[in-house]
Structures are given as structure tokens and as C-alpha cells.
């Protein structure tokens, strides 16, 4: 039973390591302009991991429920992070993206207007930030100190910082979207809307559509079709097959004219932001793990551990090391009292009563039984 549990725990750790690599590469691939094939693989890996973590969350939730400790799991054992980093991603990010690829077109997005398409794309890409919450799951599994108190405190600080950062990013993203705060996307939308108005006006006037002129005006215009026939294409078919995935473009229709737009600059911009958030979170967690955690141990848990041993073990009489810099901390004030009053008293008592030994009845139980 323990072996099986250990296997699943190790599998989760491996999955977390994979998800970190996948999250980084997923955005890096967009920024670096990787071909579609490797990005497609990353997309499926991302979906598989999101599904895996959704199943993991549901399983943990189920077992916590049957053990009547759902509240403890959800609030105290950070089940809410498990939730945020699993199901919403399947529903908002990797799921729709994979569905679009499976359907072989931009059906999932393409039925809406281009403006709506952009909003959906934006929401999906912001949701990807939630993946970074998985870093906290890694954090929970790193044990660089023996103290559960140190682990809990540092984990709490990490959870708070990362959650606040992600929530702020998402909230501001939504607010900016609702209030149309100028950005690369709004500028992009504005240019495309102007272009579509031109097409609409030309169609109303019965004037011919000059695709070449439109493409010269709008660099993101990939292709123009009229009555199902391609009248302009910026790249050849081979390029589209190799470089452009279903999530990389959107289209809009005006009459019998269908225009395809390149969404990669918008995606690239969002991925760049995601990479920045990723780096901030990795550095934050790294500094908490490797700088704050040892500091917490040095100034809180280690002195407490030494004092606990000194009080509970007859043979243990090591003093607490009091760093000059922190000597006025309450913990070290207590430690000084322990060093200067308790230990000398214990030593005198030990000399008088000759107590303090390494043998216990447990050590001789075998002898007595024989």
C-alpha cells in the first residue's frame, strides 16, 4: 500500500517537473517562432498534463471527501491550488486549443466575430498563467528543512506571493480588456476593424477588392478569399502547413470576402508576458527556498530545536548559537535565557543527581525477555 502511494507521489513529482518544462517551452516556442509541429506536440503534452492534474485533483478531493476532511484538504492542504491549476486550464486553455487543432480549423473560434475571437484568445492565454501555480506544488514537495513549521511558514509566504501575483495579472488583464485599455491587441483590433470597414465600403459601392493593396496596408493579413477562391496569399501553402497552427490565425467575413489574419504577434506578446511572470515566480520561489527558508531556520526553528532537545534530553547540553545580528530577536532573547540560566541550572542539577544517561528500558527489554 505504501509502495503504491509512493509510486503515485513520485509520478506527481515527475508530472510537475514536466509541466514546468512544458509551460516554459510552450511560451518560449511562441516567442521564438518555432514551427507548428513541435508546438503541436507541446500543446498535446500540455493537455495531457492538465488532464492528469485534473484527475489528481478530483481523486484527492474524492478521498478527502470520503475521509470527511474535504475542508482540510481544500483550504489547509492547498486543494484550492490543485483546483485552479487543473480544471480551469482544461476548460479554458489546453482544451479549447486542442479542440481547435483536432477539428482541423479554427472552428472553435472562427464562428465568432474577430473581436470576440481575440477576446477568447486573450482569456485563454491569461488562463495559462494559472499553470504557474503548479510551481507551488513543487515547492510543497521540496523538503530542505526538517522543521514542519519552517516548511509551513515558507510555503505560506510562497503561496501568498505567487497567488497574489497571478491573481493581479489575471484581474488586470480582465480589467484592461473590459475597459479597452490601449495595448498591442487593441491597436491590432483597431487596424483590422479599419481594414474590414474599407472592405465593407468597397463591397457596398460594388468596387473591386484590391487584395494586394489591403495586404500592403495590413501586415497581419495572411490571405484573402473571394467566393471560396484564394485571391491573395502572403505565403505559400507549404509555409502555412509548417509554421501556422490553428491558434495562430483568425478570420473575418464580409459578404463573399473572407480575410485571414495572423494572430502570432498578439500571441507572441502574451507569451513574452507569460515568460516574464514565469521567471518572476521561479525566482521568487527560488529565493524563498534558498534564501528565506535557511534564514527562517537559522532565526526561528533551529534555536527552538536546540532548546527543545536541551529541555527534554538529559544528556543534551549544547548552547544555542546566538548570532550577534539577531540577538535582540525574541527567539534569541529566550535562547540567551536558556543558555545563561537553564543550562547552568541543569548542569548543577545533573552533577548533584548524576542523571542523564543513554540507556533506556527499551534498550534492555530484549535482555529481560530472554
Amino acid at each position, binding site marked *: 500500500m505504501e509502495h503504491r502511494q509512493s509510486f503515485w507521489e513520485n509520478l506527481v513529482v515527475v508530472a510537475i517537473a514536466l509541466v514546468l518544462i512544458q509551460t516554459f517551452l510552450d511560451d518560449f516556442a511562441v516567442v521564438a517562432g518555432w514551427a507548428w509541429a513541435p508546438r503541436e506536440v507541446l500543446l498535446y503534452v500540455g493537455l495531457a498534463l492538465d488532464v492528469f492534474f485534473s484527475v489528481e485533483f478530483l481523486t484527492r478531493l474524492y478521498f478527502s471527501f470520503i475521509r470527511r476532511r474535504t475542508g482540510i484538504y481544500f483550504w489547509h492542504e492547498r486543494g484550492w491550488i490543485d483546483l485552479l491549476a487543473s480544471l480551469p486550464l482544461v476548460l479554458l486553455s489546453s482544451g479549447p486549443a486542442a479542440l481547435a487543432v483536432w477539428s482541423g480549423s479554427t472552428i472553435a473560434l472562427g464562428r465568432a466575430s474577430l473581436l470576440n475571437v481575440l477576446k477568447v484568445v486573450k482569456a485563454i492565454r491569461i488562463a495559462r498563467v494559472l499553470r504557474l501555480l503548479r510551481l507551488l506544488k513543487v515547492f510543497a514537495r521540496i523538503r530542505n528543512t526538517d522543521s514542519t513549521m519552517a516548511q509551513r511558514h515558507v510555503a505560506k509566504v510562497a503561496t501568498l506571493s505567487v497567488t497574489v501575483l497571478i491573481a493581479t495579472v489575471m484581474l488586470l488583464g480582465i480589467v484592461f480588456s473590459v475597459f479597452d485599455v490601449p495595448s498591442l491587441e487593441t491597436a491590432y483590433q483597431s487596424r483590422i476593424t479599419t481594414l474590414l470597414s474599407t472592405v465593407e465600403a468597397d463591397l457596398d459601392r460594388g468596387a473591386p477588392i484590391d487584395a494586394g493593396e489591403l495586404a500592403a496596408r495590413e501586415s497581419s493579413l495572411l490571405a484573402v478569399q473571394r467566393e471560396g477562391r484564394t485571391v491573395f496569399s502572403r505565403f505559400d501553402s507549404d509555409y502555412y502547413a509548417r509554421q501556422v497552427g490553428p491558434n495562430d490565425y483568425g478570420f473575418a467575413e464580409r459578404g463573399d470576402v473572407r480575410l485571414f489574419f495572423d494572430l502570432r504577434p498578439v500571441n507572441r506578446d502574451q507569451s513574452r508576458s507569460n515568460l516574464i511572470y514565469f521567471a518572476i515566480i521561479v525566482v521568487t520561489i527560488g529565493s524563498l527556498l534558498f534564501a528565506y527558508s535557511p534564514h527562517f531556520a*537559522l532565526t526561528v526553528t533551529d534555536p527552538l530545536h536546540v532548546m527543545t532537545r536541551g529541555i527534554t534530553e538529559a544528556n543534551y547540553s549544547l548552547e544555542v548559537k546566538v548570532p550577534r545580528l539577531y540577538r535582540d530577536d525574541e527567539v534569541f532573547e529566550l535562547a540567551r535565557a536558556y*543558555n545563561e540560566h537553564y543550562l547552568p541550572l541543569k548542569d548543577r542539577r545533573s552533577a548533584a543527581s548524576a542523571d542523564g544517561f543513554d540507556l533506556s528500558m527499551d534498550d*534492555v527489554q530484549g535482555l529481560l525477555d530472554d
Partner: protein
Amino acid sequence: MAKEHDRARTFVSRLLANPALGPLTPLQREEQIIQFLHVNAAALAPTLSTPGFFPGASWSQSLSLLLSALVEEVDVTLMPRLEEILARMQFGFVALLRPQSSGGERVRDQIREYLRGVLRRMDARRVMTGPLAAVSYGFVDRYCDQMWARKGYSHFELTKVQRLRLGREEIKAMIEATLLLKPIVCSGSSATAGLAEHASGVVQAQYAERVVAAAREALSLAPEELIRSAANASVSFQENRYIEATARMAAILSWRCRSYQPNMRADRGADSPDKSWLSVARRNYRFYGFDVKMIDELYSIAAENGW
């Protein structure tokens, strides 16, 4: 009776083999077991009076059997250890202290015989616990080398105040000899009463004088300075400010090593074992009768060297 004695020896030999006692010296192990037997008397007595051990024996009878078996078992390792220590010790200082003396070898033999005799007493064995550990683990070398490098208070006390016209190695040997002869305080009929005066094992200066007088016969070849140093190693420096520096040094090291555990590692956040012990000793110097300036210097040495 012989059967019960064998059972007692088997029992204590298995106790001595307990891994928890592994790194300790024979006398430290003995002391641990004696304390263990006393503290757990209520739990052990019913089992030890069963037919498998000492049928029908009272607790005091069982304890007596166990203690005599314990001493026998411990002596199996203690005596060779003492032989080894005495064999490697240099008694050259004897000739330097008393040019007309009969030589170091004969003093060594006399000390050996004296220790064999005095260590039959349980109180002497208890006093010997710290000195044996101090000599076994090289504490004298460790601290004296540093004291010579610093040429501070302790060095001054040894060479100028005590006026030992000896080299470093000879003084180290004399401190080791002082340590080994510390059980001298248990010789004489009223020795136990003298020891019982104080929980820290400190005896009155007048009592130490009587001990010196009594020991002169048994240790006739040993220099007076050594006997006096060994006796005064149990006298409080607060009572007698003229105690030999070798005696003060031996008093500190024997107490330090009484509970010394060679494999003890300082936890993260804890000070090193010697530094911790000496820091506590600085605060308890009156209780133990230590020379606080000597303790201060040893503390600095321990702190500088991470001991």
C-alpha cells in the same frame, strides 16, 4: 551462586554491548549502567528476581551481584586501556622535578599498582571517569598546544606562578599524570565522606592535605608536586587561590570529559560541544571551584577552533 554470578556477567556484558554506549570509555559505560540500574530499580527488580536471573534475591542482592559483575566486565577493557595510557605517557618530568628521584619507569610502575588498588573502590572509579576520558581523547594535548601558542593566562600560571621549569611536553605529561591520580582523593578511610560534602566532588583544602599525607606512602616514588597537584584537583579554587595550575587544569578537563561523547555533533543552530560546556562552566565556576580565568581562556580556544 556461581551460576548467578555468570548470569550477572552475561547480563551486564550485554548491557555494555549496547550500541548507545559504544563510543564511551569503559568507566563512562559503567557509570551509565549504574545510573540506569538505580533509576530503573522498580521496573527491573521483579524480572531480576525470577528463576531466569537471581531467583528469590532481593533488589539489593541483585544489585550487588550486578555491580560486582559490572566491575569485573569493565575491568576487562579498563585495565588494558590504563596500561596502554601509562605505557605511552612520558614520565621524564619526574626526573626534572626531582633530580635525585629513582626515575620515571619506577614511578610509572608505582602509579600502575596504585591505580589497580584504588580502582577497586566504586567512588574512585566514579572520580576516574572524567580523567580517563580526558587522557584517552587527548584533551591535554589539544588545549595545552593552544595555550602554548597563545602564551596567555594559563601558560603564565603554569610556567611562572607554579614555576614549572619544564618543557611543554613534560607539563602535558604532568597534567595527564595529575588527571590519572585524581582518584587519590578517595584514598583513606574518610575519603567518601570528603567527597560527599559537595555535589561537584569538591573537597575542602584541609581534607586534601590529609589525602596528600596519606598518599605519600603508597606513591613514595612520585614527586610531592604531582601528589599535591592530584589531590588539589578536587579542591575549589575559590577556597584556595594557591592551587597549582596543573590541578586547576586537571579539574576542568576531568569535569569536561566526564560526560564527553566523542561522536557528538552539534545540531544546526547549536554551539560546538566544548564551547557549550565551557560556557556553562563559566557560569558555574563557583559551584565546581574552577579558575574562571582559565575557563575563559579555554573557552576562547574552543571558540576559535570550533571545538
